[in-house]
């Protein structure tokens, strides 16, 4: 019938990339085998850094949690760029926007829960010894 119908699915749609579709060309950093190798290497380095930060005294103890969160976010970024081929190109706008919405909801759920529950336990009246004895 029309040209659209005769196209096979393997042909690239030139306006939108499917999520995870490798549209990056060979000479770019995140493309092909070298991209996967680079991503794998970076992910391994970040994992080792996480374990070192948590297990050794290299980092001032109260700052360990921030270091771990930063390293985890960096590693998720490496996965998104090198394995899921997320780019800032216009052909990826839909995918990035969907991801941004997901990240917003995740942040609301996690930060909101922790915030509310922390305040709840702070504002809870202390139990008397009698009440504590009634606890199951």
């Amino acid at each position, binding site marked *: 019938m029309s040209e659209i119908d005769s196209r096979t699915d*393997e042909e690239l749609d030139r306006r939108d990339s*499917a999520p995870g579709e490798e549209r990056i060309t060979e000479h770019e950093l995140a493309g092909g085998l070298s991209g996967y190798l680079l991503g794998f290497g970076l992910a391994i380095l970040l994992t080792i850094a*996480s374990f070192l930060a948590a297990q050794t005294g290299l980092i001032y103890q109260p700052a360990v949690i921030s270091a771990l969160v930063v390293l985890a976010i960096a590693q998720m970024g490496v996965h998104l760029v090198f394995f899921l081929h997320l780019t800032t190109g*216009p052909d990826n706008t839909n995918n990035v926007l969907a*991801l941004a919405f997901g990240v917003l909801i995740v942040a609301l759920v996690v930060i909101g829960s922790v915030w509310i529950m922390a305040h709840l336990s702070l504002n809870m009246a202390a139990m008397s010894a009698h009440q504590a004895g009634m606890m199951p």
Partner: protein
Amino acid sequence: MSDITAGSARRDPYRLSRTGGHGHGPLSATGHGQGGPASKFVTVAYGFWIFLLSDIIMFSAFFAAFAVLSKATASGPTGKELFELTRVAAQTGLLLTSSFTGGLATLATHRRSMAATQFWLLVTGLLGVAFLFLEVQEFAAMASEQAGPSRSAFLSAFFALVGCHGTHVGLGLLWLGTMMAQLWVKGFRPEMLRRLHCFGLFWHALDIIWVAIFTLVYLLGASP
């Protein structure tokens, strides 16, 4: 890439302008807006992307529950006493490597190499099985030390969160096995390429969730 030479493509390489491509290339207007509907490959993968994001939002509820309950040990064992970080490091290495070999399978699929695709899918699956084995071993060890999910709120949240990820890995392995058989029988048909692509997305997303688990649950839980 032959239409790179078309005049419109040179001025507008990403085809941002829906009207720039009149008469050039296979994507001139055929209804549903100027450029025509997206290909089935794009719509299927995008739908699966939305599913994955919903799945991650579901995981975020488990993460929130764990974060809130992580100190509620009811004078039972704490994470510091229970977690073995050598096992967690091994699990992380296995899952990370399986994500990488999954990427190699994708590259082999691009080359339409059946032997290489099946080989790397098999390696991915075996690494996933090894990961799951270590996790089941850990759960069994904890249950035998009177640290099962019913011991404290902390352990309930732990088993729910990590078990949910393990269930996803297990279901992914079933999916992988089914797909290897289908690929063997059907070859690189368009629907198989779509399914392989969705599986790749799923497997990489599981790896991203595991990054959050090993950081927030194990490393923070075991840190002094």
